[in-house]
Structure formats: C-alpha cells, structure tokens
C-alpha cells in the first residue's frame, strides 16, 4: 500500500499526459490530489514513528536477478526518509497549489502539472530507496524531470539551453556516481560471512565497516568509492565545480525553481550524503574534502549573489550557498545538522521563491533595479518575504536560526578556518538578502529613479491572488516554528550534539544584523540602475559577476578540447575503421567479381578450355581422395 507514495504522483503523470491534456483544471486537480495522497500516507508513517499506528516493515522485492547479482526495489521507512518525505510531499503540495495560480495563463498548463507529478514521483522514489541501484534510477529520473521543467518554455532558446546544460552537468556527476556504485558493489565482499554482494544500504552499512576493520577492503578503496559517490552529490547539489547549471536553471518557471532548485531536488545530494554517511565516516580525508568543497561553494555562491541583478538568480546563489553549508556540515561529521538545515531551508527557500514568483507575476520583470517600493502594494507578499529572509539569514527566533546554529557550532568546535569561512558567508548572506529586500520592497518611489510601473504604463502591481498567497502564509508559519519541533531529536541525534553556546548566538546574531543594516544603508539611498558596488569593487566585481569565468572555462574545454576529440574519434573510428572495413569488403568482392568476369569472353573455345580444366580438377581431387582412403 505504501508504494502508492511513489505510484500516486506517477499515475498522475501518466493520466495527465495521456488523457487530461486538454482539461486544465482537471489536470491540476489530479496532480495536487495525487501528491496530497502521498503526503497523507507519509503522515501516517510519521505518526507511526510515535507509536500511533503500526510501522510497516521495509518492503523489498527482487527486481533483476542474474547469477551473482541480485537487484531489488523496495521502500525504506526510517526517520530520515519519513521526514524528508514529509518535506517533499508537503512543500510540493503547496507549490502545486501555487502553480495553479501562477501558470494560469500559460498554454502548457497541463503539461506543467504532468512534469511536476513526474518529478514528485521520482523525488519520493529517491527518498524511499533501499539500495544504490534504485536510488540511481530515480536520481536519473529526477534529472530528467528537471530538464523537462527547466526547459519548459522551450521556445525560448535560453531556456532550452539551460535545460540541456543542467542535464549534461548532472550527467558528469552521475558518471562518477555510477562508478562509485560499481566499486562499492565490489567492495561488499561476499566471502566475508557468506553474504552475497549487495548494493543495499542496510546491508552495506553492516558489511563495509567490518570489512575495513579486518582488512578485507583497503581504505584507499573506501576513499575512492566515497569520492565517486560524492561526485554524484556535487552534480546534483550544484557544488563547486559542477555548480554552473544552477543559475541558468532559473530560466524555468518560478514554481519549478521553488520546488526543484530550492527545496527538494538539489537537496537530494545532501540526502544521499546522509544516507550513505556510514561510508564517509570511514575516511577522514574524505570528510575533509567534503567539508572543503562545501565551504568553497558556500563562500563562492555568496559572493556571486552579492553582485547579481536578477531576483531569481540571487535566490539561486543563495540556494547554492546554503547547500554548501549543508555539505560542510556533513564534512564536519554532523549529518544531523546538515539534514536539519535541509528541512528548514526547504521551508524558507520555497517561501522566498514563491514570494519572488508573486512579485514577478505582478511586475513582469526580474531585474531588481527595476523594482522598488513594493511593500506598499503587496503587503502580504512582502511580509512573507521578510520572514523568509530572516529565516535564511539565521535570525532568532526563526527556524533558520536554529539549524544554522547547529552548523556553526560544529564548525566552531572542529576548525577555526571553517568557522571563519562560515561566519563570513553568513555576513554575505545577510548582505545580499538585505540588498534584495531593500531594492525590491523598500525605498520610496520618487526618490531617484522611479520604477517603470509607477509611470502608469504597465498594470499596477497588485497583491497576488489568494491561491498564490495561501502557500506563502503556510510556509511563513513553518519557517518560524519549525525550529521548535525538535527535529534534531527526531533525527536521532544523540552523539555529537554540540549545544550552541551563548557566545555563538551573540556572534552570529551580530553578524547577521550587521549584514542587513549595511546593505540597507547602501542600497536604500542610491537608487540607480547600476549597482554601486561596481565602482567600489572594480575588477573584483567583474570577476565575480562573470561567475569567476567558470562558464567560460567549461565552454573552452568543450569547444576546443572535447568536440575536436569527438570529431577525431568519429573520423578515426567511423571513417577509418568501420567505413574502411566495409569498403574493403565491398572493394574486395568487386575485384574478385571482375576477376571472375574475365572468364566470360563469349568465346566458345575458352569455355571448352574451362570445362576440360574443371574436369581435370575434379579428377585430381578424386584421385587424391582415393589415395587417402586406401
């Protein structure tokens, strides 16, 4: 029955794409209902965690059985998967509802909900996977859904390109991922206890530490497997250096950004880290690398967010940065903190994106420097947005504060370098969010440049319809209260729970307030269409706004190195080898044919010669045969 959790949205996808394409309202209803079904089921499971109702056993069915290999598909029910499932289905349902309003005028309305349902099914599949192979399947499905949704407005070249970019970069990471899976499969040594080789999470968790301890597998092997699996995480969660697809992914509709690139899909990588954490703890170097990459990503993304003009892109960089925080937490051996932050981040990031969606819906522009003074006209949205901002910055008493505190505490206890980086990133986070809020919502129209909508040309921005503000309200509530649910306890954090000290709270709060204040001061006074930072930072500004030239780097690699190499292979293999062989065969036969053709001169005497010759040949063969069988 619980397989409905995944099947329900999948069925919705099938039904919508095949049957109800033309009935928009019905499609939306089906999609929302299917996800709510999943949510209800997961809620039931959640209650079972507390003893209300029975917790079902993990189900598992053999899916592909070859000699020596046995792959299963199943459902895994534990605290992590249930909590994650609640996030995905709950926030997902809210976003579905939001989309009904946001995409109202879009001709591809039903298609949108079909893809959304597909995505939901795949994401839930990831969450409830029991083994590596299953998670990989759904991993790829999620990548596919992401491609479809980013490139939803495929008529726009930039959108189509962005979709492709996302998929391809993801694929690079997935290549490492699958190599890691294969390696891990080999590492699960069967000779150990008569157990079979497996890719099952539970099985591996039991086997691998033991294998490492008694020397059956080398630590190098474990490290390599871990690094390869981490590659998948880097791709999916947009960590450095495979982060380049996330900013461009904002080409998709805003609900897509909210769902996929804030709350859920990119979090899948972090989820995987938590799931497979038993592997990563075995190697200190691996954890070090994970932490470093997380920290680099967090810092880098925050700097890029500071100079970005597009509202959605700022939020995208913010996502990247927060993901970096989560990965950093994992690297600091505190998976509980990472997942805690994942959950709270899901709430407030979705909130922020949806709020941005409302704004865009109203003013039809995404450039921050074209906005201003929206607070007056869209109060509900603005307040929700403020709440989301405070949560993101980690201001007491929002949920974001609690989760970020955990991470900062872990950093403080582990390493001053990481702590320094983290705190600076917190400052930058507050700075760019404050910048965003100031530019979009605050400021008096009339001082400096007036936003275009004040000039009376475009429709006045009005508050968004209720169907769109309703999710905002819910999410705002969650963003504030989620810190009090006791999630760390739920996740089973007994060990290594660093209580955050008073010092830490004071320091972090001070940093956050400083960031917010500075940005407010900088941006509220000068309201020009140019970023004043451009003058201040000069060449540094250029570096950052060009995304540290990473896109150019990749571009160069693909154009100058990869494509010529592929063309060479094409030429070499196709032209020389394959074409050569077929040409050779054809040519050879042709030559043979023309040789034989010379026999047919039309001259009778020649024919008679050939005839007698053949008779002689047969005769010789007969004689030889007779001699041999004497």
């Amino acid at each position, binding site marked *: 029955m619980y397989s409905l959790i995944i099947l329900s949205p999948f069925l919705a996808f099938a039904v919508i794409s095949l049957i109800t394409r033309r009935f928009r309202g019905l499609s939306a209803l089906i999609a929302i209902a299917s996800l709510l079904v999943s949510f209800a089921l997961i809620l039931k499971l959640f209650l079972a965690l507390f003893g209300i109702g029975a917790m079902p056993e993990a189900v598992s069915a053999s899916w592909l059985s070859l000699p020596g290999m046995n792959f299963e598909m199943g459902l895994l029910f534990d605290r992590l998967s249930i909590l994650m499932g609640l996030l995905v289905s709950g926030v997902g349902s809210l976003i579905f509802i939001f989309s009904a309003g946001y995409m109202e005028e879009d001709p591809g309305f039903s298609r949108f909900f079909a893809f959304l349902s597909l995505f939901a099914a795949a994401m839930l599949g990831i969450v409830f996977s029991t083994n590596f192979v299953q998670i990989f399947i759904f991993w790829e499905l999620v990548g596919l859904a992401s491609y479809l949704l980013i490139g939803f407005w495929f008529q726009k070249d930039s959108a189509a390109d962005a979709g492709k970019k996302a998929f391809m970069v993801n694929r690079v990471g997935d290549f490492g991922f699958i190599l890691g899976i294969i390696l891990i499969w080999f590492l699960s040594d069967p000779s150990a206890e008569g157990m079979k080789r497996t890719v099952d999470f539970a099985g591996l968790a039991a086997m691998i530490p033991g294998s490492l301890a008694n020397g059956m597998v080398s630590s190098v092997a474990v490290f390599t497997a871990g690094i390869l699996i981490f590659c998948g995480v880097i791709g999916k969660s947009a960590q450095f250096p495979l982060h380049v697809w996330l900013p461009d992914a904002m080409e998709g509709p805003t609900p897509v950004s909210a769902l996929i690139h804030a709350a859920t899909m990119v979090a899948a990588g972090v989820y995987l880290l938590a799931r497979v954490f038993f592997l990563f703890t075995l190697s200190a170097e691996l954890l070090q690398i994970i932490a470093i990459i997380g920290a680099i990503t967090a810092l880098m993304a925050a700097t890029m967010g500071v100079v970005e003009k597009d509202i959605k892109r700022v939020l995208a960089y913010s996502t990247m940065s927060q993901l970096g925080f989560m990965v950093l937490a994992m690297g600091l051996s505190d998976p509980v903190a990472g997942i805690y932050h994942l959950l709270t981040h899901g709430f407030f990031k979705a909130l922020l994106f949806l709020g941005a969606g409302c704004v865009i819906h109203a003013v039809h522009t995404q450039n921050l420097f074209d906005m201003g003074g929206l607070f007056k006209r869209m109060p509900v949205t603005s307040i929700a947005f403020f709440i989301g901002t405070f949560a993101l910055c980690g201001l007491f008493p929002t949920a974001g504060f609690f989760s970020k505190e955990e991470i900062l505490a872990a950093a403080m206890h582990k390493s001053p370098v990481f702590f320094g980086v983290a705190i600076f990133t917190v400052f930058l986070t507050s700075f760019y969010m404050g910048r965003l809020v100031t530019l979009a919502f605050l400021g008096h129209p009339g001082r400096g440049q007036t936003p275009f909508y004040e000039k009376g040309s475009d429709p006045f921005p009005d508050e968004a319809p209720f169907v769109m503000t309703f999710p905002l309200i819910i999410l705002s509530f969650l963003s504030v209260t989620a810190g009090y649910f006791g999630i760390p306890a739920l996740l089973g954090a007994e060990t290594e729970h660093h209580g955050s000290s008073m010092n830490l709270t004071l320091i972090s709060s001070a940093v956050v307030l400083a960031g917010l204040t500075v940005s407010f001061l900088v941006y509220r006074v000068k309201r020009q269409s140019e970023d004043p930072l451009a003058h201040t930072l000069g060449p540094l500004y250029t570096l950052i706004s060009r995304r540290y030239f990473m896109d150019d780097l990749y571009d160069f690699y693909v154009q100058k190195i990869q494509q010529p190499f592929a063309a060479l292979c094409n030429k070499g293999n196709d032209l020389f080898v394959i074409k050569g062989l077929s040409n050779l065969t054809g040519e050879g036969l042709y030559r043979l044919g023309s040789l034989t*053709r010379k026999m*047919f*001169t*039309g*001259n*009778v*005497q020649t024919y*008679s*010669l050939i005839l*007698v010759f053949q008779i002689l040949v047969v005769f010789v063969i007969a004689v030889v045969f007779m001699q041999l069988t004497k």
Partner: protein
Amino acid sequence: MMIPASHYLIVAFVLFSIGLLGVFTRRNTILVLLSIELMFNAVNLIFVTFSRSWGNLDGQVAALFSMAIAAAEVAVGLAIAILLFRSRQTIDVAEFNSLKD
C-alpha cells in the same frame, strides 16, 4: 606375337588428346568439328580394342553405333555452321562472342 591391347589404347589416348588440342586451338568452325571427329575415332579405336581383348563383338557393335551417331551429328553440325555463316558472314570462332559480358 600379338600386339598387346595397351599399345592400342595408348595410341587412342594420344589421338584423343590431339583432337582435344584441335578443339581448343582451331579458329575455323568446320575444322573444330573435324577435331571432334578425331576424338570420335579415338573412342572407336578403344571400343574395338576392348572388343578384341574380351573376345566378343559387343565393342564392334558399339563402334558401329558410334559411327552412325557421329555421322548424324556432323550433318546437323555443318548445317548449323552454314546458318552461322549466313548470319555472321564468317565462321571464325573468335568472332562469335555475343555472349560476352
């Protein structure tokens, strides 16, 4: 002392080969037919030789039949040669190559 049959057979074989050579070599159609007649004759010799060595007359009867057939074949063959001449104005076998590829 009788001449052993093998001597006759060898003569016949050589005659046969000479006829074969003629078939391959000659350019005049009629002379090709002539070479074929030589081969027939060689065969007749072999028949008669074996008739002698077996002591009955079956071989000679076979030789007679062979001669009759050879006569019939020559008649028809030469008629065809005449037809060839009528249509091609030549009886040079090298010219008859319309079956050429």
